[in-house]
């Protein structure tokens, strides 16, 4: 499948970060929009409503792009995980991975977009440290799992 090359996608992602700052003085971060969605569902008056709309836009935009490419197609496939494990175990592992990401993102105050894109582009020291840490961790853990599973993962 043909993808937008990095030198097109990268600057456009960069512009989404700049647009939010330039138009609304706000920071772009996806994990924060997940959290604000839960705030809204719990009817919390302090909900950051534009972030709820961002999440809904994200869901709509991804669905639109998938549809443009002929999808969505229902599948139980998930790379090496579903080749190595039965679906039930793969589901539990993936739920656990999501749990770690959600917990870690709320703890660190951001994820790949909030710290990695917005924070680093703002030259925020905390974001630079968080980004170096999660990129480093992700590479080390991925390589370790690959090695330990004999290349299956």
């Amino acid at each position: 499948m043909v993808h937008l090359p990095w030198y097109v996608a990268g600057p456009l992602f960069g512009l989404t970060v700049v647009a939010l700052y330039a138009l609304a003085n706000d920071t772009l971060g996806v994990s924060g929009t997940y959290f604000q969605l839960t705030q809204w569902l719990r009817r919390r008056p302090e909900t950051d409503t534009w972030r709820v709309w961002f999440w809904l836009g994200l869901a709509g935009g991804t669905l639109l792009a998938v549809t443009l490419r002929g999808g969505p197609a229902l599948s139980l496939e998930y790379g090496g995980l579903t080749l190595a494990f039965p679906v039930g175990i793969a589901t539990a592992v993936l739920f656990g991975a999501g749990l770690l990401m959600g917990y870690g993102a709320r703890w660190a105050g951001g994820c790949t977009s909030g710290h990695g894109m917005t924070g680093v582009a703002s030259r925020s020291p905390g974001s630079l440290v968080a980004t170096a840490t999660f990129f480093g961790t992700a590479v080390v853990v991925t390589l370790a799992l690959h090695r330990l599973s004999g290349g299956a993962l």
Partner: protein
Amino acid sequence: MTAIAPGAVAPSSPIPAENAPTDSLARQMSLLRPINQLGLGVGLVFGLLLVLSGFADPAVVHKMLLLQEPDLYLMFAAVMATAVPLLWLLERRRWRTPLGGPIEIERQPVQRRHILGALTFGTGWAIAGTCPGPALANTMGGHILGGAVVAGLFCGLLLREWVKVRTAAHIGRSLDTRP
């Protein structure tokens, strides 16, 4: 201004007091507010880009985390090459944003949470080959197991929030702002 004759019943406030917060939340959510339109629009573009760039595919991200393909890193460099100078310029020009007042670029000092939270986050990212945006994209593409990641994300965010509130109540200060 409408004058109300003495004795007349004031045009009754349609909201009973106990429902007021909910109603004001509904008003805040209105898509007539430009800030919500902006959120929706940027979210849409961000979602389109995630799928069209291929970074929503865990297999692609997995290869990059195995250091077999450089595209993810090059893409991040391209994000920075665009956003760093533009944010610098906006700040230097003391840009007045139409919706949020004078621009204030948020910078955080390094704190313990940046390292501990990122260690936790990075581990989950490695296992699933996807972070919060791509996980939603993957699910919308019909990958049912992507939904397990999304469900885990919601639970993890709420769990951390619960731990934070509980601990703050115990020690009298917020856990996540401690240096």
